């Protein structure tokens, strides 16, 4: 069941966060947002979300770096991470997964693709 599960959306594009939030809320998820990697790391330590949707291309701390830090943290490494990537190169995806991400999705994607990944990693 998606009810009550909290997802943290990390993306520097507010419009994208808003579009994803609308759909995921309609599906019954609780959505929290962060606009950059630094903000995200603080948020995660405080609120311990059930799943993280993380954009790769962000200023300062990019998605790979956020991913690496989370997966190195014993208390946080269990949280599933889905990377949003703009590139279709398989090596970039390997790199993302190498940093410990649990899955990735390439922009532009469709909701059903994102929803099925979320459900899969939340064991819904």
């Amino acid at each position: 069941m998606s009810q009550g599960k909290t997802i943290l959306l990390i993306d520097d594009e507010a419009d994208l966060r808003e579009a994803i939030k609308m759909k995921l809320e309609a599906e019954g998820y609780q959505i929290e947002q962060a606009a950059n990697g630094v903000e995200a790391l603080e948020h995660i330590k405080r609120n311990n979300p059930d799943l993280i949707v993380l954009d790769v291309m962000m200023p300062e701390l990019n998605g790979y770096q956020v991913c690496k830090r989370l997966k190195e943290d014993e208390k946080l490494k269990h949280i599933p991470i889905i990377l949003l990537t703009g590139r279709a190169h398989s090596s970039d995806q390997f790199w993302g997964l190498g940093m410990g991400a649990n899955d990735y999705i390439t922009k532009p994607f469709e909701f059903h693709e994102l929803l099925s990944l979320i459900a899969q990693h939340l064991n819904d």
Partner: protein
Amino acid sequence: MANLKYKNIGQKMVPELETLEEALGHLETVFPEAISVKRKDHQNVIKLKNNISTPPKPKIERLKNVITQLKLQKEFVDVAAHELKAPLTIIKLSLENFKTGVLGPLSEKQKKVIERMEWNVIRLTRLTEDILSLARLENGRAKIRCLQQETAKFLKNVISHFEDWAERQHIRLELKIPKKLPLLCIDVDLMEQVLSNLMSNALRYAKTKIIVTVTANAHEMLISVHDDGEGIQEEHLPNLFQKFSALKESSQNAKHQSTGLGLAICKKIIEDIHGGKIWAESLKKMGAKFSFSLPLQCLCEK
């Protein structure tokens, strides 16, 4: 010693810079709005190239600049990919929110408009992807990995993706693949792009059937995709593989419209990367036939 080293490295870079110069020219064509920015870079590249071919007072610093420039240009495509895909994703997902009723119920008329917008977002997405993959192929940014493939298995797999589309249009797919075929050494992703392109073109024009034929001799393999549509007028044949030369299609819905870059991409992949040849034939009332040959000896790793 330092001079000689500089000269040697410089010489190695000249062809790279020439490719870059050419790629920049192409980028100017595909991103007209970026011309003013690009033109400056373009001139810098030409300047650097001239400096390198006739080294005046060689300085390592200058070489470093060249490398930085090169890296920046190569990164341009990746940055462009991100910058173009972000807004597309937002529009696409927002339309989906409308269509699926997340934002409240819609009338039939409103749904139709949303659908039309969605198709055109798909079209714009495909165009973006085609422009970027062409730019990657042209500036050598595409990652190429050649693998030995079982020809029949590879072809059948790609063609199977088109079965549903063909069935919906009542078009029969005929495969004429000999039982014994040599292995092919190809980049699977790129070759799939070629076949998919030819198959979707054929599906756009075919009336009742598409025939895919494979033959091989000791040196090369020949693969052709033949539809039974109206065919192509002879005067269009020579320009087909140029960018944006696609024939204006009459009232196809945007969902299946071609981007005008598909055949240019095919040519790059077949001829520049795999060392083959691609061409088109059309016989009056006999439909269009696109064929390509691939050398059996792997040319990928030159």
